[in-house]
């Protein structure tokens, strides 16, 4: 029983990472119409930024500043490259562009910081198990869940109440109309892209605190994040969030019974979802098709 709880809790943590990644991807998929293959590389980049500024800012400062630095790189990428492809209707171009960028970013990380994994120190106050029976419930893991909740809550609040958030949502459903209303959609897309990267950055630092840094750390998260979007439903941020949590939890639970199947199970869930309910949990019919 403890083992099941242990794995379920692990799965939930994993799901929180998937959800953070999926949210960022879903944002960019929505308004930027881009499958951002470089999302995992941005995530790793933010973690390495945190690693570098850590001695000066401490963990908490790094948690705030490093994602912003990664978003700054995202700004450069969006304005100099991704933006040029919006007029091409075929999604292949942005997909291959971000795929190439992922290779370049990973290679740069490897060159600058080395291919070896590194630890990222986390504050001592977060590093204690909270009980002896449930040894796996460490302060840091609760912290991960907490940060995921807070940042997701903040995102939904921004989308709901701020002017820019309302425009992003409107742009998701009808970009032409809001452009006609005089909204600068280029700027809007840039900001949206950067918000997406911010989420990757937060996920990267949290993951580094738990598993350490390594140039390929994004690889194991980006595919499940895609699956989370498909399961949750393309076009729905809430769906992506739920999708991430569900596949994380499912993968955790399956680990208890069949460790070898823990990764495959999320693809099975996706397959079942596609057959039973092709638009996903909360997806809109016919979006991006």
């Amino acid at each position, binding site marked *: 029983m403890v083992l099941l709880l242990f794995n379920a809790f692990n799965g939930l943590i994993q799901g929180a990472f998937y959800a953070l990644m999926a949210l960022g991807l879903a944002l960019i998929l929505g308004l930027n119409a881009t499958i951002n293959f470089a999302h995992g590389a941005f995530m790793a980049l933010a973690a390495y930024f945190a690693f570098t500024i850590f001695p000066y800012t401490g963990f908490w400062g790094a948690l705030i500043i490093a994602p912003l630095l990664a978003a700054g790189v995202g700004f450069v990428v969006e304005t100099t490259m991704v933006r040029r492809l919006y007029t091409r209707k075929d999604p292949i171009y942005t997909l291959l*562009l971000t795929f190439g960028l992922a290779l370049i970013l990973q290679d740069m990380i490897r060159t600058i910081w080395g291919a070896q994994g590194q630890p990222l120190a986390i504050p001592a106050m977060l590093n204690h198990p909270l009980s002896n029976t449930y040894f796996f419930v460490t302060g840091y893991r609760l912290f991960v869940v907490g940060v995921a909740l807070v940042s997701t809550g903040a995102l939904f609040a921004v989308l709901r109440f701020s002017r820019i958030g309302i425009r992003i949502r409107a742009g998701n459903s009808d970009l032409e109309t809001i452009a006609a209303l005089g909204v600068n959609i280029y700027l809007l897309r840039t900001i949206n892209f950067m918000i997406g990267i911010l989420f990757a950055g937060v996920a990267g630092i949290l993951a580094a605190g738990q598993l350490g840094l390594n140039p390929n750390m994004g690889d194991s998260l980006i595919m499940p994040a895609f699956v989370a979007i498909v399961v949750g439903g393309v076009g729905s941020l809430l769906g992506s969030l739920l999708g991430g949590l569900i596949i994380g939890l499912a993968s955790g639970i399956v680990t208890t019974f069949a460790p070898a199947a823990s990764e495959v199970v999320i*693809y099975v869930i996706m397959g079942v979802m*596609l057959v039973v309910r092709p638009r996903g949990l909360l997806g809109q019919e016919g979006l991006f*098709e």
Partner: protein
Amino acid sequence: MSTPSSLSRTDAAATTTNPKFNRRVIGNLLLGLVLIAVPFWLPLVGGYTDLASRVLIYALAAMGLNLLLGFTGGLSFGHAAYFGLGAYGVGLMLKYETHNIFIALLAGTVLGGAAAALLGPIAARRRGIYFSMITIAIGQMFYFIAVRWNSFTGGYDGLTGFSRHPVHLPGLTLPMGSLDFYYMVLICFGLGAWGLWTILNSPLGHTFVAIRENHKRLTFLGIRTQRYIAISFAISGTIAALAGGLDAMYGNFTSPNVLEYTLSGNFLIIAVLGGMRNFWGPLVGAVIFILVRDYVSSITHNWMTVIGLIFVVSVLFFPLGILGSIKDWRALISPRIREQDAP
């Protein structure tokens, strides 16, 4: 308006299309001669035969992918799965079942093709970006199966312990060294290319292209487009599996890398780099991609950056690919040349 006998007009149509057709046939024959002669001229320019085998294997996979991508308009980011299934199929057959490389190759091709035929219809339920994401995820499933099913597939370390056995023909034994293997790859490449060429010149191929152009229009003519996308997917996956099977024989080794999405991305960039609307585009793309990778990885550790730059530069500056851009320049000079090349 009266309609004169259609027969005379058919003849007229035939004579207007014939020169173009002949030029294509001559071009293909020339290409065939160049490829047959590779072992003789490649060493003169500093290459080696295995490199040519690798180029043709990747070109074949990318041409298979391109049936779906360039000619049906379906962006699959998961074709490594079918390539990889072909590779594992061949590896496992040679390791456990048979020493006959042709039977093994057939088995690997059928395995990958069957997977594509089963999974294509699921992906074909959706279009656009959604289609791509589903193909990515389906592809990753096979990656994890190969990684986790240690006892059968060798896990992360890959599958070893098989080799291309010599081929015994009546009165002749082929040792299947680099040279023999190159010709085997070339024959497979030729068969695959011939099959694709035939399909693209048939009503089935015309239907694929029409779906790419305007699936709505075709739906209103009474065509269930999903079904044809699934067919294109299956054919395309089968060709990729054939290439994957050859890839396993190439190094007498296969590993989960051949199932990974990175390889799917490589096939895509090969097609796009060469020109995805052109029949021979993937061959041109494969020549450049493999040669650059081979060369760059021998001179710098940062070869991934160079490969990444190939993606970025070709996407930003050569969206039509090399053959497409050449056509474009020629079209500027002589407006009668078609921008695209549905053969």
